[in-house]
Every structure is written in structure tokens, then in C-alpha cells.
């Protein structure tokens, strides 16, 4: 049962073949047996999840009309506020904090009766590509426990690949949903910026952050997408427009006559051979399904990474200023005679990890008077140019595609002392955040050289998210018939349990 898709679980629930309590318990048991190896979860809310599940069962027993995913369990990235449940963002500085309110994403999940199992591990404040920057220890890739599960949302992706949950919520600032999906053989979507409310999402970089759905199939992702998306008056950047019809698109999976643009700059040098091979193969399958493959050029993508590492740290240097020990979270050095300033300094010294400090320092510098124009100002101009690149590319193609990341999962510790090498992992995902458009990663197979999952990225214009679901569903169907079974069936068994 736990290896089924969320849609299949929902059907079984609707037919009365299983209760939500039983389904939830199955997943909680699975977590108990494998999470000591995977470490996808920071907090398991056994009581809360079972209470929520039994409430859904009661509603179903009364014959109430329920939402499509009612009763299906989900893993929540620990960057979203959930009332009464510890929310740490993978940081020591928030240890013990229990939000007094629900983020809009969580409120929407509850409204849809989706059962929240617990909070998943992440790079501290979503800063990282490997989940090694979590203050609570790394998450391990279920494909190979010595490897990273991607980041920052490594916990959410790993929980799916380890069958600890059929659904998960991630957040994506520069690739934190898509890159973990790619390296774990799962599906992850970053919706259009403003498509899903950011209220209650602890901010890393406000203009780039976007919460989105993660699952093992395109359809499951679409179902979750529709459950969490929509305008929210509490988020001024939330788009006031109908939610794109992504479920319908995922169900039809029709790409006949669609133009698929291959971004010239997001391929070639620096991309692992197995990654390129799987990408080419996917293009052929899409062409066979009736799509037209064209090449597009986005010359300014070259500067995306540099601009990103000015904008995101700048915003984070300001967003993280609120962690000052005054109102919540960690407080260090509050002894007789210590001033507020001393307590703030000590708390931040102890509470933040190295990568977070690195980015705060970088951002503080980039915003400083005298440097602002050269750094933050120029980065914003690059951002405009990247958006223009997308606009002209989308004039030639309905969606754009690329490999999600240049390589498969690397070893834990391999890049931790080389931040620049780590940053390069997000080279193909970052432009999407810079322009605020939608992006999806789905598995395109295993690299021949290491047998690890490879991700295929689909990018769609602002609020045309349904397009990437159509293409994703078409590719997924073609690959499935080629492989004969879902890619995760090839993953090794965990801790001796299948």
C-alpha cells in the first residue's frame, strides 16, 4: 500500500478499502523502521496525524463530501509554520519554537483533510543543496545512504523516495524542490511565484521563495498543487487569479502540437554524460508523443548564478534579522548585567550555522551604502534580463526544458568545503526563480555511469503551470511504458525492509 501513488490511496480511501487511520499508521510504522537510516524527519507528529486521520474517517463515515486527497498522509518541510508543532527551519536558533498560527499552506492542507505526518529536514533556513547544512544532521538519499538527497528540501524528497509519505511540501528559492526531486527520483514542482501563498513560510529570500508540491507521480503533484494554491489576501505578492487547471493537464498528458524549447545554455559542459543521455532520450520520447522540439537561446542565464548569490543573500540578511532572542527561539547569554545587544549577538553567533552566516555577511555587504549599485542594483538588472530571455524564448516555445541539475547525487561531505561547487548544482534551476515562472522536475531515468536518478526540468510561463504538467505527464507515461515499472522500484531496499 505505501508504494502506491497518492491518487491510488485516495481511491482506496474513497472506496472504503482502507481507513485514513490505518493508512497513516502504515506510514508512521514505515518512518519508525527506516527513518533512523534516512533521517528525513525532524519531528514526527504521531498524535496529531492520527487525530487528523480519525477526523477524516469520521467525516467520510457521515457521508460528507471530501476533497480528492482527503485522508492521504503528507510530509511537511520544516520551514512552514504549523500551529503548535515545532518549526525549526533546520536551525538551532528556532529550537523549541511552536508557532501560534498556521501558514496558509498548512491551513489549505487541513481544509483538504490531508494528514500531516510531521516536519522534514532541510538545509538551515533553506540555504543549501544537500541538506548537510541542517543543524540537526544530514538526510541520506534512499538510493544510496552515503549520498545527499539534494537540498534544501532533502527531507521532503527523501521521505517520498523512502515511502515514508506519498506526498510532501517543499519550498524552492533556487531549486530546493526540483534538485532534491531530481536526485531522489521523485517529482517536484515550483509553481509560478505568487501561485501558492508564502504566508507562514519562514522567509529565506522573499522575492524568490515559493512553496510547492512534491510526490512520486505527476498526477499526485498536480492534485496537491490544486489543494495548496490560490490567492491569499495575507500575502501581498499572491496572484489574484484562478488556479491553473493542473490536474486536468496531468490527466490528459497531451503534448500533440506543443513546442518544446531546449535551452541551449543549460546543457553541455559541466553536465554529467548520464544526465545528458537521459535528457536526449526524454526529448526523443516527447517528439514521439507529438511534440515539436526547438532550440532556444537564453544568453543572460550565464549571469543568473552570480546575480542569485547577491539577491538571495541580500534579502536573507534582512529577513533573518528578526531572530534576535527577544520574542522567541533560542536565547544565549542572558545573564545578569548582559545588555540586549550582547544577548542578540551571542544568540546569533551560537544559533546560526556557517552557511547562514556566510550568506548574511554576503548580503549585508551587498546592500551596504557605496556597494548597493554595483552588487544588489546590478543583480536586479540581470534579473530583468533573465526575465526578458524567458519572454523571448516563450515566444518560440510553449515550455522550455533542460536537465534539472548537472550531476546525480554526490557523496555526503564531498562538497561541504567548497561552497562554489555546491552553488553550481543549482545552475539550471535558478533562472526559473529569478523570473518567477513555474518549474517541474521529474525522473528521466538512471545515469549509466552510477545508476542514480536523473531529473528532467520543464519550465512554463507565469500562471501557465498546466503546460509543464501536460508535458510532465506525457513524458512520465512514455518512460513508464519503456521501463515497465516506476523508477523507484529500482531503488535498493532500506534497513532490510522492502
Amino acid at each position, binding site marked *: 500500500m505505501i508504494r502506491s501513488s497518492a491518487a491510488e490511496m485516495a481511491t482506496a480511501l474513497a472506496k472504503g478499502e482502507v481507513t485514513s487511520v490505518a493508512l497513516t499508521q502504515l506510514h508512521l510504522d514505515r518512518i519508525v523502521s527506516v527513518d533512523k537510516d534516512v533521517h528525513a524527519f525532524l519531528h514526527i507528529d504521531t498524535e496529531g496525524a492520527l487525530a487528523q486521520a480519525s477526523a477524516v474517517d469520521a467525516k467520510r463515515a457521515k457521508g460528507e463530501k471530501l476533497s480528492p486527497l482527503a485522508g492521504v498522509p503528507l510530509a511537511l518541510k520544516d520551514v512552514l509554520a504549523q500551529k503548535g508543532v515545532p518549526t525549526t527551519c533546520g536551525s538551532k536558533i528556532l529550537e523549541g519554537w511552536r508557532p501560534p498560527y498556521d501558514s496558509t499552506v498548512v491551513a489549505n492542507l487541513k481544509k483538504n483533510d490531508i494528514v500531516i505526518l510531521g516536519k522534514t529536514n532541510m538545509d538551515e533556513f533553506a540555504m543549501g543543496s544537500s541538506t548537510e547544512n541542517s543543524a540537526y544532521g544530514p538526510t541520506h538519499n534512499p538510493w544510496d545512504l552515503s549520498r545527499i538527497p539534494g537540498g534544501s528540501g532533502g527531507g521532503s524528497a527523501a521521505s517520498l523516495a523512502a515511502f515514508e509519505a506519498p506526498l510532501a511540501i517543499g519550498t524552492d528559492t533556487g531549486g530546493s524542490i526540483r534538485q532534491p526531486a531530481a536526485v531522489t527520483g521523485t517529482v517536484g514542482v515550483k509553481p509560478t511565484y505568487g501561485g501558492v501563498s508564502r504566508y507562514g513560510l519562514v522567509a529565506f529570500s522573499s522575492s524568490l521563495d515559493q512553496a510547492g508540491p512534491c510526490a512520486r507521480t505527476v498526477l499526485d503533484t498536480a492534485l496537491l498543487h490544486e489543494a495548496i494554491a490560490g490567492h491569499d489576501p*495575507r500575502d501581498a505578492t499572491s496572484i489574484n487569479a484562478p488556479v491553473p487547471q493542473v490536474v486536468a493537464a496531468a490527466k490528459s498528458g497531451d503534448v500533440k502540437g506543443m513546442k518544446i524549447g531546449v535551452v541551449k545554455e543549460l546543457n553541455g559542459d559541466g553536465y554529467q554524460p548520464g544526465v545528458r543521455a537521459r535528457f536526449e532520450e526524454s526529448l526523443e520520447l516527447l517528439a514521439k508523443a507529438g511534440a515539436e522540439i526547438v532550440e532556444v537561446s537564453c544568453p543572460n542565464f550565464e549571469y543568473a548564478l552570480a546575480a542569485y548569490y547577491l539577491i538571495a543573500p541580500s534579502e536573507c540578511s534582512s529577513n533573518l534579522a528578526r531572530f534576535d532572542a527577544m520574542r522567541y527561539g533560542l536565547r544565549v547569554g542572558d545573564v545578569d548585567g548582559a545588555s540586549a545587544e550582547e544577548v542578540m549577538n551571542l544568540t546569533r553567533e551560537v544559533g546560526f550555522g556557517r552557511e547562514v552566516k556566510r550568506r548574511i555577511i554576503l548580503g549585508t555587504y551587498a546592500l551596504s551604502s557605496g556597494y548597493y549599485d554595483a552588487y544588489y542594483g546590478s543583480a536586479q538588472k540581470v534579473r530583468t534580463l533573465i526575465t526578458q530571455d524567458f519572454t523571448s524564448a516563450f515566444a518560440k516555445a510553449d515550455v522550455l526544458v533542460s536537465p534539472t541539475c548537472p550531476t546525480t547525487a554526490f557523496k555526503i561531505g564531498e562538497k561541504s568545503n567548497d561552497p562554489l561547487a555546491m552553488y553550481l548544482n543549482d545552475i539550471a534551476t535558478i533562472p526559473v526563480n529569478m523570473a518567477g515562472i513555474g518549474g517541474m522536475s521529474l525522473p528521466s531515468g538512471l545515469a549509466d555511469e552510477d545508476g542514480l536518478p536523473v531529473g528532467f526540468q520543464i519550465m512554463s510561463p507565469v500562471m501557465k503551470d498546466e503546460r509543464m504538467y501536460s508535458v510532465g505527464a506525457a513524458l512520465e507515461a512514455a518512460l513508464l511504458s519503456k521501463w515497465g515499472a516506476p523508477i523507484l522500484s529500482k531503488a535498493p531496499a532500506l534497513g532490510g525492509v522492502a
Partner: protein
Amino acid sequence: MSLTYEDVVSKYEPVLGLEVHVELNTNSKMFCGCSTTFGAEPNTQTCPVCLALPGALPVVNEKAIESTIKIGLALNCSIAPFSRFARKNYFYPDMPKNFQISQYDEPICVNGYVDVEIETDEGPKKFRVEVERVHMEEDTGKSLHVGGATGRIHGAEYSLLDYNRAGIPLVEIVTKIVPGTGKYAPEVAKAYVAELRDILRSLGVSDVKMEQGSLRCDANVSLRLIGAEKLGTRSETKNVNSLRSVERAVRGEMIRHAELLNKGERVVQETRHFQEESGLTRSGRSKEQAEDYRYFPEPDLVPVEPDAAWIEELRAQLPERPSVHRKRLQEEWTVPDKEMAAMINADLLDTVEATVILGSDPTKARSWWLGEISRIANEQNVSVKELAITPTDVAEIVALVAKGELTDKLARQVVEGVIAGEGKPAAVIAARGIKVVNDDSALMAAIEKACAEQPETADKVRNGHLPAAGALIGAIMKETKGQADAARVRELLLSFLGQA
């Protein structure tokens, strides 16, 4: 060796710059739905947004934008079709996010002016104060530093924080530099703040109570030698909590700067705090090293792009300008210039107007407020507005006098009673047993008694020596405990003595 003000202005030219912060009277805060009621229990008007809990996001209060546009229009500003909020980053415990959302290089209103008129040696003179910008921001929380001598954070044992004020909408109105006021700089500063306050009040966008901090003025002052081009170093005086203090603060800073400059010392660029008791300023934070606020556009908010038609709609709804309003009142009430000026200086125009609106004769209303009531306020060393008497009370008293139910003298007793806290006029009249004696038979008895007691005086009157009646009237008034209408007494007395 202390300089006189005349010494200062004969040598130096003052240059002013005024920054006024106005708390808007919106029901909810700038970026969340919390209530803005003044004086609530600490930390009861807070939510995830204004406490800056992780994940919370600001949303702009539309009413605050509307109020700010109204202010901009009333100050003759252009309204920007595109403006933005920015983050002003600095750490302080009373600022929950450790940045303030404010407008920086893209404010909502720019380039306006306010005309003020002041009395000069050559009669009334108009000055134009140019407004550089009007922008929106949020207020901080309040810190209470306990222990330590100064009430400042340094030396305090501990501090209490109240976040009820955090996020209250603030509008900042910044003037361009104001040169050319010469020795009238203090008066111009005061007149500008007064005019601004009247404009804001007429717009209904703020309580404009300086003593409660809903209108706060920072006065920038610098001096340069008369004829010099280059501006001197300025100081910025904060904590100026009344119109009178604005004037005193500017005058005080001019003298302080001049004394330093005369000694060959330099003025330090700093903020200073005005001290109400001494009228002097005390050194605050040095601004010699400009703080780096690392401003950048607030990514959690979208730009403000008000619809042109909406702006025109707001423009069409602007109330009468206070200066025009004053002119109209002066004509309607036929008040001489000097008395009008007195009323404005005493800050009683609105009070008199309220009394007139309640039906009082303008001259009577004015004479009560500026006469008897002001006199009592002076005696008690408080402002008229702090007294317990209201325009409603005065209008009622004026009406009773007009109906003949009170004499002027009795009315004064009623006013005294109301101010003394004895209640509303009717209650004072009842409690004190104040009543005009207009029963002729009671008066006649007193008249007969007086004439019987002073037969010689009565004879003088009978023989046509009318001034002698005064002594008799005095006795009659005494007999009736002053409650008789003196005119009626005289009429009856003369008739009794065959002289009417």
C-alpha cells in the same frame, strides 16, 4: 556672556528644516489587522505580523494609502503614479523585524508647499514652506527602560517592551530647507506645524494630539553668517511635544549654535532632545557617522500604483483649506483682525467655532472662551482645553443668559462651578441655588424696605437727582443676594419713586 536673541539674528541667518511624523487614525495597523486604540494594556494589540513571528507577512492598509494621498493633495503635492516601500535595516529591540518598512527613494507624494502667515514688525507676512516629500512608514514598539537614572537604555537594569504601537501607520512630512525667515524662524516653525495640524485635522486623518505623540515634530536648525551661501551644520531636535515647544526649541537651538560659533567651536551634527521644563536641548545620538540602513525595496510588498481617477476623486472631496476656513469665519462673525489673531494664537478657534455651531452668538462665545475661561486657566496654570468645560456647556450658558434666566454675573458663577467639576450647567445651577429674581412682588418688597431704610436718599431721587438711585439699587441687590436683574430693579425703583 550669554547672547541675546537679537545678537544672534543680527549676525546669523537661521535655516530651518522640519520633519513631522503623524500617526494616522486608521482602525487597523499599517500592515496587519490589529487595532490601533491608544492606551490599551501592553501587548494586547499584536499578532504574528506585528510581532514579526517567523513566516508572517505584511499587507498594506489601503485606508492608510488613501489618508496619505489626501495629505499629499492638501499639501499641494504631486502624487506619484508608482511608489514603493523599502526596508530600513537596523537592530533595536522595540522593532520586531529589526527593519522598519518605510518609503525611501520612491515616496508617494512629492513637491508640495504650505503657506503660513505670521505677525511681523511690519504687520502680517506670508511665508511659503516647501514640502519635499510625504511618505508612509510604520511606528516602532515602545521601550520602557527601568532602573538607571536617565530612563535611557544605557544604565537601565531591564527594559519592558510594548508592541501595541509597533506597526501603527505613520506619515512623515519633510520640508525642503526653509531659508529667508530671518529672526522669525521660531514663529514660522510654529505656524507651519500649527497649519499642518489644522490641515490634518480638517482632513480627519489623524488625532493630531502632540501631547499623546500622534503628531511629532523634529526641528532641524542650522545657522550661517548673514550673506553666506554655504549651509551651517544642523542639529535635529526631537521630542518637541507642543506648538509652544516648537518655537522655544528653534529659538533655543539658534542661541546655542550662535554661542558655539562665536567661540570658534563647531556645531556637532546630532539629534538632540528637547526638555520641556528648561526649554533647552540635551545631546542625543551623533549623526556624524551616517548610519548605514541598507535600504532596499521591500520584496514582501507590491508597488503602490494608485488609479488616477481615484486620486481625482479624493481631490474633489478635500475639505475647505484651514486658511480659507478661518477667513470665512472671520467674515461671518465680523471679528477684527487683532481678535482673530488672538483666538488663533490661543489655539481656541476650533473651540469657539464648536460653541457657535451649537447655537451661540459668536461674540459671546469668543468673549467667554478668551475672557473668563482663559483667565481661570491662567490662574490654574493649565491650558483652556484641559479645563472641564466644553463648548456644549458654554453654548448652554450663553443661551440661558439670552433667555434672561441668568445674568452675566450669575453665568460666571455657573462657569466657575462647571470648571470646578460640579457638573453640567443645569446641575451647578440647581446645586448652588442660582436663580434670577424676576418676581416683581419680591423685588417691590426689597425696594420698599430700602427706601424706608434710606429715606433721605429716596427723597433725592424723588426730587429728580437720579444718580442717588445707585445706593438704593446696591441695597436692593444685596437684599436679593445678587440674584435680581439690576436693570429691572432700576426700572421698578424709579417708577416707585415717580421718576419713570
